[in-house]
């Protein structure tokens, strides 16, 4: 069934942000649905947009990791064709979070203090904030890792969602603007995944992830990275990563 996408109204969004302590209490007192919103605000929290999407229902599990990958793919497939103006709008994600994924949001991240409402449920419109939003991250994590050229186009998505150091990999991509370039994100994930497979978990600490992301930035300091393919970037990143890992082993042996 097709549905119109919605956005939380500007007034509703600003009111909830301003009164985030109340919102926290309301969510705690009403964990199963967000019907309290309209009564709390005194008006309809959402405005309907003209864009249509296939309706979707995300899986729910108290252990959210059990459904995180499938939910990311479902969310991505459902909304990927919407205009960027919608996909990168925090009020759109407020609708998704409060209306379409209310219970899932509570399971994806435990709300342990009121400030988390503003940080992860009512994000700002910055790239980083949207990429870290409690539900929006499922979409963006899939978007930056889906590789149409692979036989299993979601192989890297599964790797970054469920694999070793997946959270740190995603965070590294989030924190650097260059991570928004698809060939960079794919090459970064692929190089870490391949090094992980060859050398195991032990040598792949957070430092190696940070250094590999810095390597990607260094490429862009002289070359036009926008002009490079995943394979070209991968070749550089993997070569440098492997060099650091093998030199690290040598140093340990010495």
């Amino acid at each position: 069934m097709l549905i119109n996408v919605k956005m939380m109204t500007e007034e509703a969004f600003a009111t909830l942000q301003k009164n985030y302590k109340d919102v926290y209490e309301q969510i705690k007192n009403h964990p199963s649905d967000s019907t309290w919103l309209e009564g709390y605000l005194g008006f309809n929290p959402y405005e309907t947009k003209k864009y249509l999407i296939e309706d979707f229902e995300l899986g729910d599990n108290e252990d959210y990791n059990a459904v995180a990958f499938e939910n990311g793919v479902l969310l991505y497939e459902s909304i990927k064709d919407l205009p960027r103006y919608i996909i990168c709008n925090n009020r759109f994600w407020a609708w998704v979070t409060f209306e379409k994924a209310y219970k899932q949001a509570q399971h994806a991240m435990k709300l342990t203090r009121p400030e988390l409402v503003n940080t992860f449920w009512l994000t700002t419109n910055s790239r980083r904030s949207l990429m870290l939003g409690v539900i929006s991250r499922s979409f963006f994590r899939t978007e930056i890792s889906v590789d149409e050229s692979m036989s299993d186009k979601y192989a890297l998505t599964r790797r970054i969602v469920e694999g070793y150091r997946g959270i740190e990999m995603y965070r590294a991509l989030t924190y650097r603007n260059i991570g928004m370039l698809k060939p960079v994100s794919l090459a970064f994930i692929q190089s870490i995944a391949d090094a992980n497979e060859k050398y195991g978990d032990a040598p792949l600490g957070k430092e190696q992830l940070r250094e590999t992301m810095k390597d990607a930035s260094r490429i862009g300091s002289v070359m036009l990275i926008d002009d490079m393919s995943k394979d070209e970037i991968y070749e550089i990143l993997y070569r440098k990563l492997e060099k650091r890992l093998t030199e690290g082993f040598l140093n340990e042996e010495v």
Partner: protein
Amino acid sequence: MRIGKRLFPYPILNSEKIYSQYKDSVFALQYDEEISDDKQYYLLNNLHCELDNQMLIDLINTDRAEIVCVIECPSTMYRKSHVLPLHPINMQIPLADLNNKVNVSAFVVAKEDIDNYHSDDFSDVYGDISFSIEKHDILAADDGYVNNVDFNDLDDNKQASIFIVIKDKSITNGTMQVEYDSEKITISLPEEQWNMYDKTKRIPKYESLYFSIIAVPALCYALSCLQKNDLAVDILRIDYKWFNSFAAAYKNFHGDELTDDAFIKMNTNLEAQMILGSPVASAVDEIFGFTIGISGGDEYVD
């Protein structure tokens, strides 16, 4: 993508003369921007790069280098690159993929490794030195322009207000608080007063009154804050959507563009009133008329 003052291990032709390591050569991105008549596309017409360095032109003509135009919009995470020919072209980008700042830049990029890279127009300090260039190295750069694309949903089909009025339960001293961000001026009222405001805001006879006691002081405050920032009007128009709307209203009202000098010298209290239709006089008239209306003039004291 910005190159700015970045130093390269070889000479690059920069559109900014002071950062260029070429003596006289020119590389300059040029286009005319507009929104399509059907409001569906952001158009870059007559898009081309002025380039007069023969060595770089020869590299492009022999397919050893290319001109790449990068279009990016941070707020929609849109970033795409396009290879440009040497002659002008028209390009269109779906408007719904853009919002707020859009940066358009251009580069000449090596398509293969190039040995003995040298131009007679290199700055004198390089003498006869030649360089080894790698594939994808940037050879010329123009950081281009930051434009403001104010995307408005077609289904809204109305001018969005620059104000939002909300309740704030934490206000217990009866004050009205004003904040602004890149999009709107947000006015917070105590919950009880917001509830009253919400029930009465659409009654026409209260419109001037609300403009006088809420909108005028809020706009005056926000403008005064920006005056202290000491930033150019052009930058403020890109950074703050509500200010861009204010500047457009200023032009409609005065007939002249808002200049840096006019903004610095502006009496924000007066300007806020004028731009919002001088609501104070109307508000007093309405209060007077309302009082006469309900008391028959008994409460009127000369």
